[in-house]
C-alpha cells in the first residue's frame, strides 16, 4: 500500500476512483508515523487565511497546503494575486492577516532558518546587471550558510553559463538558468517559481521541467510553480490552485480537476434552457458555442455535440467567464 499524504482523509481528491479501500485514516497514519519514526508533518507549505489589502486589491483569505514531494501549480490571470501571495510567503511584504508555515515553522520563529529553506526564481533576474558569475558566487557565500560552492560551479558548467561576461549581456534563458543555479546550490526544501518559465524557448523549458522533477524526486521537497504557461503544468503538476481576483477558486489534484469537466461544442440553436442551466461559461461564436459541463452531468448533453477533454487553459477560461457573468 502506498501511504501518501493525500490519502489521509482526503477522499474527495480521488473521487473518480471507485475503489478506495486503500485510504488511510489520519489516526492510523499517525500511528504508523509513531512506530516508524516518520516525520508527521507532511505539509511542506501551509498557507492559512492569508490576507493582504491594497488600495484597489484584496488578497482574500487565501488558504492552501502543499505536501512534501509534490508540485503545485499556482494559476490565475495577471493581477489575480499570485505574486502578492508569493511575496507574503517570501516575507517580502507583510500580510495583514493569516499564517504561513514552511516545513512546519513560521517566519517569526526563526527568520534565517525560514529563508534558508526557500529557493526563489522570479521572472526577472534579481542580480545587479554589472555582476559576473564570480560576483554572484561571493554574494551567495556571504548571505547563505547553506550555499554549496561545488554544486553551484557544477550547475554553471552544466548550464554553460559564461563566467567572464556580465549579467547584462546574458540572454533571458541564461538569466533564468543562473537563478536556478543559485537556488539549487543551497539545501532548500521549497522552490518557488514566479512566472520563471515565461519567454523561454521550448528546449530550455523542457530542461527546466526535468530540473523541477529532479528536485522533488527524493519526496522531501516541494515546488510552488506560479505561471500562466499552463501546458507546463499540464505535464508535471500534482495539484492546481486557481486564484481569481484575490480569491481561491480551485484547489484540487490536477488529474481530478481535468476529469471533473468536459468541454462541449454545439449549435447555438440547440441551447435549450435546461442545458444552458448546466453549462459553465458559455462562449458563443458565429458558428456554434463552446462551454464546460461537469463530467457527472454528461448525460444531459444531447447527441451530435462535440465532446472533448478540456485542458487546464480551457477550464480556466470558462470558469472565469462564468464568474464574470455572475457578477
Amino acid at each position: 500500500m502506498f501511504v501518501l499524504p493525500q490519502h489521509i482523509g482526503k477522499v474527495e481528491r480521488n473521487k473518480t476512483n471507485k475503489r478506495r479501500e486503500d485510504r488511510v485514516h489520519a489516526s492510523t497514519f499517525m500511528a504508523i508515523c509513531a512506530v516508524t519514526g516518520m516525520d508527521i508533518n507532511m505539509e511542506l507549505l501551509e498557507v492559512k487565511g492569508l490576507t493582504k489589502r491594497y488600495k484597489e486589491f484584496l488578497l482574500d483569505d487565501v488558504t492552501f497546503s502543499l505536501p512534501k514531494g509534490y508540485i503545485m501549480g499556482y494559476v490565475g490571470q495577471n493581477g489575480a494575486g499570485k505574486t502578492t501571495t508569493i511575496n507574503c510567503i517570501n516575507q517580502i511584504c507583510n500580510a495583514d492577516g493569516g499564517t504561513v508555515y514552511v516545513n512546519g515553522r513560521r517566519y517569526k520563529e526563526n527568520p534565517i532558518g525560514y529563508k534558508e529553506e526557500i529557493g526563489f526564481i522570479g521572472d526577472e533576474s534579481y542580480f545587479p546587471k554589472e555582476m559576473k558569475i564570480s560576483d554572484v558566487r561571493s554574494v551567495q557565500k556571504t548571505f547563505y550558510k547553506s550555499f554549496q560552492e561545488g554544486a553551484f560551479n557544477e550547475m554553471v558548467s552544466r548550464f554553460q553559463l559564461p563566467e567572464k561576461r556580465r549579467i547584462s549581456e546574458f540572454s533571458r534563458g541564461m538569466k533564468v538558468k543562473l537563478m536556478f543555479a543559485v537556488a539549487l546550490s543551497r539545501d532548500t526544501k521549497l522552490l518557488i517559481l514566479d512566472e520563471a518559465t515565461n519567454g523561454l524557448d521550448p528546449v530550455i523549458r523542457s530542461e527546466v521541467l526535468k530540473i523541477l522533477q529532479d528536485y522533488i524526486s527524493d519526496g522531501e521537497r516541494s515546488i510552488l510553480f506560479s505561471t500562466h504557461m499552463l501546458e507546463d503544468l499540464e505535464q508535471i503538476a500534482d495539484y492546481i490552485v486557481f486564484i481569481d481576483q484575490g480569491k481561491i477558486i480551485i484547489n484540487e489534484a490536477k488529474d481530478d480537476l481535468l476529469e471533473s469537466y468536459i468541454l462541449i461544442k454545439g449549435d447555438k440553436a440547440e441551447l435549450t434552457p435546461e442545458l444552458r442551466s448546466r453549462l459553465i461559461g458559455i462562449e458563443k461564436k458565429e458558428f456554434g458555442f463552446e462551454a464546460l459541463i461537469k463530467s457527472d452531468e454528461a448525460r444531459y448533453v444531447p447527441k451530435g455535440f462535440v465532446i472533448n477533454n478540456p485542458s487546464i487553459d480551457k477550464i480556466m477560461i470558462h470558469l472565469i467567464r462564468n464568474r464574470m457573468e455572475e457578477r
Partner: protein
Amino acid sequence: MKILISNQSELPIYAQIKEQIKEQILNGQIQEGTELPSIRKLAKELGVSVITTTRAYNDLEEEGFITSMQGKGSMVLSKENELLKEKYLLRIEDGMEIAVETAKRIGMKEEELVDLLHKLWEE
C-alpha cells in the same frame, strides 16, 4: 518495460500507464517477480505528475497485478495469484468467444473448431 504516453488519447494518462503495464504483464513481456521502477522515477522519466503514476500503481495493485514492498518499489505478482489467474482466464475466454462466433458465422462445426484448436496447440 515500454510506456508510450499519448496526449491525444481519450484515456487519462494514469489509465494509459496502467493499461500498458497490464498488457505487458498479460502477454509475458514483463515477467513475474520483475521490480517496477519507483513511482517517482517513473513520473520523472515519463514527465508526468507523481500523483498520476501513484494512481496507476494503486490501480494495478488493487487489480492484483503488482504488489508494493515497504520502502522498496513494486513487484509484478506471480501468475499463481488468484486475481491474476482470473484475468488470464478472462483473456482466454475473450479469444475463444471470437473464435466460436466467427466459426458459427461461416457454418463451421464444433468438431472442426476443436480440431483446429488441437492443431494450433501442437504447433
